[in-house]
């Protein structure tokens, strides 16, 4: 199964789905123009409320990750954020603040932090290459 939910992660279920679609897109498992599963079968498969899937898809659409074609369903869009570069930098910065604080509490210094960041980038890129979607 492409998506796995964890009710013990402390994270809202619809946001888990949002993150996993974004991860699948970044890793090339989901390709541009590829349709996402429609709401009912995905909800049944994951055994979650349809509202949860609908909310996740609405969030993905507002972030510009997917687009809805009336009567046809949801499709992955080409990577491209609707935000300006400075806004994008700020959004990413906010996420990274969390990771930096986390690193501090785990006694991971800047150098090691950057090394880990590089590793994670490489892993994702390898996945993309394996998925044949460079």
């Amino acid at each position: 199964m492409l998506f796995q939910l964890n009710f013990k992660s402390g994270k809202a279920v619809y946001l888990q789905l949002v993150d996993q679609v974004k991860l699948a897109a970044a890793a090339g498992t989901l390709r541009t123009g590829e349709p996402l599963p429609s709401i009912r079968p995905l909800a049944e498969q994951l055994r979650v409320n349809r509202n949860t899937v609908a909310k996740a898809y609405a969030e993905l659409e507002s972030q510009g990750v997917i687009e809805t074609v009336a009567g046809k369903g949801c499709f992955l869009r080409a990577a491209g954020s609707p935000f300006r570069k400075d806004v994008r930098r700020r959004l990413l910065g906010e996420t990274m603040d969390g990771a930096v604080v986390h690193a501090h509490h785990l006694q991971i210094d800047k150098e090691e932090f950057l090394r880990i960041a590089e590793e994670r980038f490489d892993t994702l890129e390898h996945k993309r290459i394996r998925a044949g979607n460079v």
Partner: protein
Amino acid sequence: MSDNILAIETIGLVRRYGRTDAVNGLNLRVRPGRCYGFFGRNGAGKTTTIKCLLNLLRPTSGEARVFGLDPAKNEVAVKSRIAYVPDHVAFYPWMTVRQTLDYFASFRPRWNEQTEASLLERFQLDPRQKTTHLSKGQRTQLGLIAAICPDPELLVLDEPTSGLDPIVRREFIQTVIGAYQEGDPGRRTVFVSTHLISEFEGLIDEFTIIDRGREVLTLDADAARDRYRKIYARFAAVPAALDIGGSRVLRRDARELEIVVNGNAADVIDRLRVHAPETLEVEALSLEEIFVSTLHPAGAVA
């Protein structure tokens, strides 16, 4: 139907059996379009509450409202818009599956034949089979078909999956998600009473935990999973004077402390860190774990 009319509302609901208060001042507010979990241990008052909503029991005091109506005074208006699956489903034994569904359909203004056909197929129920020859799982499946086909605005499920095998349970929940919610989602409300919480976890938007006839906790499911954390700490020796900010202690002995925090995890972690724990682990809780920790008898721990 306007959105501000609640699908279910109880105001100070009390139902007494002899000297026992089965339901003791219960307040519930279920908005339309929600999937609402009603969690409690056996004997907590779940079924009694549901029976008051269905006018199978009269409240001793307080009020029960369904779609804003008193179910005792507007019995037909209420019942024509709801469907109910109890934990023990009974049918007339001389009827076949087909006759049973026709019988149920005869009471209903609407009957979705497409849904009926697809669910009979999905559950592989033989319409010619006599209902006496159905297994418990098949009887529940038939009860669910009878409940969903009228396209009710409110589906009330009382311990629907207890005593069923895991495959039937899974299909049951998938059917509620798929076939029932398929229609107009804003007008498809589910009210499910259960203690098998983990099975329904993904379905639940909001829930109430009831104990001894009283509401103990009502929360949005995502908010609950966000707020509750279990913290495990191991010390050289658990400090005698330890301020844990009102957290619930699950276990405490000479070296270990296990607590559940509600909303102030970061603060409690800081307080514990002051005492230099050897180990400090934090984990989020599922709804079932929140249920257990909420009803955990506090006296059982030191």
